[in-house]
């Protein structure tokens, strides 16, 4: 059963991945970057590119130029020795070295599980998305064994910070806590308690009385 589910999940993943790839290809076919750049003789000393709609005159990275991160002339290599293809493939964490070069302190925080969010991993793990409390979805970890978990950073830098405008964009809040259902009525509780006490007293007392009655009759 588990195998079937795994296969299904894998297929689903493949479908969504290829769908994403198709969407990018249809848009403008950015990859591989060399396709256009080889003839352009780019230097990367610009602060904005109209073609790519990247503008480094605004945002927290407004002091930088393209070549601070993209290695000219092809631009597909990034500083730190990674290729932008990792982004295309979805290996976002590989791009962390790009940011690590300048944000050394934050990167160390990140490696030490202080910056960025963390996730747990376990053996034979399957993550399922459940729609739960107030229809908010949640990724449930289903493991074969829950007794050996470990913690790793959950996301790469570029998943939270767009490199060209790195401040995090806040998410909308979820609905506020609802009213809790009221506790049972106090008077009901009081009367029930009283009833219970009285009836238990009766249970204790009645046999004695009956005993006495019997004894009395016998005595007479």
């Amino acid at each position, binding site marked *: 059963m588990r195998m079937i589910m795994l296969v299904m999940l894998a297929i689903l993943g493949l479908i969504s991945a290829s769908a994403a790839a198709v969407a990018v290809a249809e848009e403008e076919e950015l990859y591989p970057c060399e396709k256009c750049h080889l003839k352009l003789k780019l230097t990367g000393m610009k602060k904005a590119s109209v073609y790519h709609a990247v503008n480094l005159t605004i945002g*927290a990275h407004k002091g930088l130029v393209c070549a601070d991160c993209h290695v000219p002339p092809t631009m597909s290599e990034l500083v730190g020795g990674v290729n932008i293809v990792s982004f295309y493939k979805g290996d976002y964490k590989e791009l962390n070295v790009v940011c690590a070069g300048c944000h050394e*302190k934050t990167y160390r925080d990140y490696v030490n599980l202080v910056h960025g969010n963390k996730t747990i991993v376990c053996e034979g793990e399957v993550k399922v998305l459940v729609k739960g*409390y107030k229809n908010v979805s949640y990724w449930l970890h289903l493991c074969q064994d829950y007794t050996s978990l470990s913690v790793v950073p959950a996301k790469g830098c570029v998943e939270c910070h767009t490199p060209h405008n790195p401040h995090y964009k*806040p998410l909308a809040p979820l609905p506020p806590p609802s009213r809790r259902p009221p506790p049972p009525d106090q008077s009901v509780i009081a009367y029930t308690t009283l009833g219970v006490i009285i009836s238990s007293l009766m249970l204790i007392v009645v046999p004695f009385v009956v005993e006495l009655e019997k004894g009395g009759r016998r005595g007479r």
Partner: protein
Amino acid sequence: MVDETRRNLIKAGVVAVVGSAIGFIAVKREKLMELLKPVDKVELLSAIDREYSVYAERAKKKEAELKRWCMEEAAKLCRERGEESVECVEAKRRCDAIQVKATGPRKGVRFAMAIDLNKCIGCRRCAYACVMENNQGRNLNIEWIKVLGVERKEFPEILGSQLDYEMAPLPDTVYIPISCMHCENPPCVMVCPVRATWKESDGIVVVDYDRCIGCRYCIAACPYGARYFNWAKPVVPVLELNPNMHILGNVPRVPHVVEKCTFCIQRTRDGGVPACVEVCPVGARVFGDLNDPNSPIRRVIERYGVYTLKSEAGTNPRLFYFFGPSKPVHKQEGRR
């Protein structure tokens, strides 16, 4: 002759001294027994290494019980939706996966959490994840984590904070998530008349749901309002059940007991992080072992320094707040 007498005298003296010393000790011991009472060895040792054998047994029983309940619910689902439906298959798989653990505290571990108030955007995702992870009754609307929106003014007030804001993050508000503080000095533990709640050696304050009598003294004693009483039987749909359970943590509760955050004991005792830490979209929460010099929490304490809430209550909380290097959300320029 004289020598002989003297020797005899000395002998007699020694015997007398030793004798009275023994008598002295014997008498004193009897007197002492009145003052110092002997301890029952068996009772003492079994209390020290409660060894979780009691809990392991109970966990096993609970697991069987839960599996039975789960299978019944799943059978109901299958009848409704059909044997081959996705829900039916999933429910059965979830029932199989149920595991009730009784993992004890690891030696030399002391857990603590810290929250970066410069990062928190008040989105409440932690509160929701907590409900899902800890098998909270969906009918009771109990959320172990509350996010306070406190206005940034000259004298911020916890009392005047907002719980039910609809818009966040607002520029002039700081968001403070609160839950059980796992105090070093927990008032709730002191007032419990049946010892149903206590602080474990790894710093987690737990509740034994089987021992709790529902008197709610602890709720009155807690300065943070972090404990909740379930007035009815919690209802958890099988398809939303978290199969990873701990007998002192997120095992579905019986009605009329007090419950609260346990630092996700079912995850952290086995090396994980709590669900709120995992789900936080900004990574504002940091969790770790205070005794481990390389742990994230130590890094936060050493680099940024930490603060606590209501420390004047003498509780000595282990849920810290800190102000990380990021600019608070409202001060960031160039927002899109």
